[in-house]
């Protein structure tokens, strides 16, 4: 797929010969997330589709209290300081962005009046600016009007290094200008095909200038509003106990008609995921429970309680096996897995190919993750309902054996295949987590049949995922041949995500293992194409380059993708809501309502 094909495809969408969905599916196969694909369409002059309107109630506040159960409790309510999704979700009860991502990766307008497009002059074709028109007549909870000044202020606030906002990544490389009271222009200091990041979705929630202005920079911690939000959202702040409970009451001045349906909202935090699932689907004490990372067997049983049902969202989380291209058993310059070394066996492409054939993704999906995940062989793409049929993964022990035999890897006296005295015997590490240990077992058994010996190792998650330089069991050190965990492109634009295969990003002692290339795979062609993407102005050409990069990673078996994990929540039967997968669980809270049985 090159740039010309890409343009041709967008032309076909324009003429109606290819559906938007079809286009997103094709992009997904090529490794581009759905939001990225819809952005490309926008550049190509195809406007975003409207989020289907499904909200039925005709009166606000008729629904009593909406009870949400988050098993991790929110600890603060300023979206710019959210240390996890729990804080983002809780902030979203009160704060809103200009637009949010719907499940189809279209922008749903919240505080913006229209989606910027090439036709309406909202986006520059070279990706250097975007113009947002704001909704008029929106008021903050204290009655002050919401204007362009607030939007500009949020950029100043978040990009000020003294503020130390966690959203800074979305605001550091832009400039925001006020054109009039209801129009702002976002200028990108580098060409940014993915224009819908600042002021959009979780990182885009807007705080009021008139309250936060004195607390910009180093004083940001002292703002009383960090715990007492004043936003534009469907609910007004009532009370907050950090680590326990957030309460809100209906905002009768809300800017969308007939919304919200509930007169009040509460978000209880704490406990564990399993009992949260029970509190919704078995006892209906709560209306919605978030992030149910519970084994599929148990979830099925709890859902049989009948009071609620599971809600899934196509996420971007991918459980994958990484292959170490360096030698974890040789110490060079005080570190193992040094870039000076070469993995004696896994550096052979044939061996990697054979290993990939020995991973039974079907069994992992069927027996371990159930409906909460789906098998995939594709690393870099989005929703798998688009992908599963098109990509091919294969589980074939015989084929792996033939491949190894043909290339001189013969069984030794102990049954383990070897060549030139180098044995196919690897250490395979991951974090302690039951599904992961079960997956390790499945891979180990298949490898055993093919004459490959795997030693399994499970490490406490708090150690494995820490950045502790003094500990040898962390995932960036990768002192093993294989390792497995879940990762996700937090940014819909692949620019940052693709850095993890750059030669310059190799995690080593010299950079305190902060480098993002953990497999330590180095490829000159990859580096060259990546360098070109950083200067390429044309969004189409750039997208085509990313597709090439993805192909390189897949063809070289740098990683073995296993399962796309879905976001799982549970809602009581009456509650009507959808999860987005590209945005917070509470992305369209204003539209949640209960269908009362007639």
């Amino acid at each position, binding site marked *: 797929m090159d740039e010309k094909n890409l343009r041709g495809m967008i032309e076909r969408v324009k003429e109606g010969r290819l559906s938007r969905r079809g286009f997103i599916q094709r992009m997904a196969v090529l490794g581009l997330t759905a939001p990225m694909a819809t952005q490309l369409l926008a550049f190509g002059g195809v406007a975003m589709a409207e989020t289907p309107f499904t909200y039925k109630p005709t009166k606000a506040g008729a629904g009593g209290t909406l009870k949400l159960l988050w098993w991790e409790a929110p600890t603060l309510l300023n979206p710019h300081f959210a240390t996890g999704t729990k804080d983002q979700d809780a902030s979203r009860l009160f704060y809103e962005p200009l637009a949010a991502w719907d499940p189809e990766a279209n922008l749903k307008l919240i505080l913006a009046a229209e989606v910027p497009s090439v036709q309406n002059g909202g986006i520059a074709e070279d990706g250097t600016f975007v113009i947002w028109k704001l909704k008029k007549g929106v008021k903050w909870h204290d009655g002050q009007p919401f204007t362009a000044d607030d939007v500009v202020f949020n950029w100043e606030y978040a990009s000020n290094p003294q503020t130390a906002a966690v959203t*800074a990544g979305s605001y550091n490389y832009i400039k925001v200008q006020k054109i009039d009271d209801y129009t702002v222009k976002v200028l990108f200091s580098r060409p940014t095909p993915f224009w819908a990041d600042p002021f959009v979705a979780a990182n885009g929630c807007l705080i009021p200038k008139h309250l936060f202005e004195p607390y910009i920079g180093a004083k940001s911690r002292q703002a009383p509003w960090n715990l007492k939000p004043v936003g534009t959202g469907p609910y007004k702040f009532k009370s907050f106990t*950090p680590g326990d409970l957030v309460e809100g009451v209906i905002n009768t001045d809300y800017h969308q008609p007939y919304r919200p349906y509930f007169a009040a909202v509460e978000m209880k935090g704490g406990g564990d995921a399993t009992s949260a699932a029970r509190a919704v689907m078995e006892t209906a004490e709560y209306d919605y429970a978030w992030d149910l990372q519970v084994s599929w067997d148990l979830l099925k049983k709890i859902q049989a309680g009948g009071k609620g049902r599971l809600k899934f969202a196509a996420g971007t989380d991918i459980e994958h096996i990484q292959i170490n291209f360096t030698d974890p058993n040789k110490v060079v310059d005080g570190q193992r897995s040094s870039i000076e070394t070469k993995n004696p066996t896994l550096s052979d492409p044939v061996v990697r190919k054979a290993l990939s054939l020995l991973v039974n993704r079907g069994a992992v999906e069927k027996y371990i993750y159930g409906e909460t995940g789906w098998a995939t062989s594709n690393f870099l793409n989005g929703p798998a309902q688009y992908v599963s049929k098109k990509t091919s993964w294969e589980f074939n022990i015989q084929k792996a054996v033939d491949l190894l035999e043909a290339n001189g890897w013969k069984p030794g006296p102990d049954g383990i295949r070897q060549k030139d005295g180098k044995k196919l015997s690897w250490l395979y590490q991951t974090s302690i987590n039951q599904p992961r240990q079960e997956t390790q077992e499945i891979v180990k058994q298949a490898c055993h049949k093919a004459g490959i010996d795997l030693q399994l190792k499970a490490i406490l998650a708090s150690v494995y995922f820490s*950045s502790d330089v003094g500990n040898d069991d962390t995932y960036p050190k990768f002192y093993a041949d294989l390792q497995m965990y879940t990762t996700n492109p937090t940014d819909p634009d692949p620019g940052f*995500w693709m850095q993890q295969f750059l030669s310059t990003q190799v995690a080593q002692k010299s950079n305190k293992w902060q480098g993002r290339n953990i497999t330590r795979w180095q490829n000159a062609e990859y580096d060259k194409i990546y360098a070109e993407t950083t200067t390429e102005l044309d969004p189409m050409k750039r997208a085509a380059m990313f597709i090439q990069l993805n192909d390189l990673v897949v063809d070289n078996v740098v990683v073995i993708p296993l399962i796309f994990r879905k976001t799982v929540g549970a809602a009581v039967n009456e509650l009507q809501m959808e999860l987005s997968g590209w945005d917070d669980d509470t992305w369209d809270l204003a539209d949640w309502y209960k269908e009362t049985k007639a």
Partner: protein
Amino acid sequence: MSRAYILRRLMMTIPSLLGISAIIYAILALAPGDPFGQLLTNPNVPPAVVAQLRKSFGLDDPVWLRYLHWLFAMLHGNWGFSFSSRINVSTLIFERLPVSLVILGAAEILAILVAVPVGVLAGTRPYSLFDKIANTLAFIGFSLPTFFTGLVLILVFSIRLRWLPFVFRTDLSVTGIAWLWQNILQSVMPVTVLGLFQGAALVRYVRASVLDVVKLDYVTTARSKGIGERKVITRHIVRNALIPVVTLVAVQLPVVFGGAIITEQIFRIPGMGSLLISSILSDDTPVVMAITFVYAVLVILFNLFADLLYAWLDPRIAYR
């Protein structure tokens, strides 16, 4: 028992508390994890932001300097602020304390109400059928961890029978009698779990203590005077047998805080225990320090209190 003795004991707590705080601080500093771990693994957050946060929270200083900072601030009554919610630790703790106290207080009362009569009856009729049953139940009671009994109660009373709620709520919308009733309903299970766990251990102590006293000569004398058995038990046996039990309860009180950590987590009670767990999980050092330190103070103070109480109840004991 003199005033000098109390003063001396209080003085002795100072080095203990210093030592305890230094050890806890060292352990927390050595433990893996980082308060900004979640931010570090989120590639959207620029490293500069994390660096700035670390700097502003003083995390880049050497451990001993951080400890001294903490110690001096603590001496001035400044407990620092929580990394995760960015508010003062004292505010957080005082928000949580009342719930814990009510639940733990109720559990301790339940434990005493169950343990004393059962223990006394079992002790005065050793090896009777009642004693054997009481003993067996007590063993089961303190062998089963609270997280297990808690989950069993939830499964039976909330999931199967649907009698009791299992998510503890502090925002009950009703008032008056209904509010009280709702609170009782939601407290039944956690209080039962904690109370019976404590009570089971206490039964054994009461029984042992009663057994000791029953054999003493003065009890035989009382009986031979022809005083009724009931009176012998209440006036003569229990009075003396409970002296060590009272001190034991006092010493155990801080332990109840520890036992409540798991129970609070299971029932989502917003108390000190659940605050401690979530702070440990998010590596929120100032909060963990403050809570563990409060526990340490409680343990030391209650020990002192138990000693003094013992001497007051039993004049034969004298401290110099």
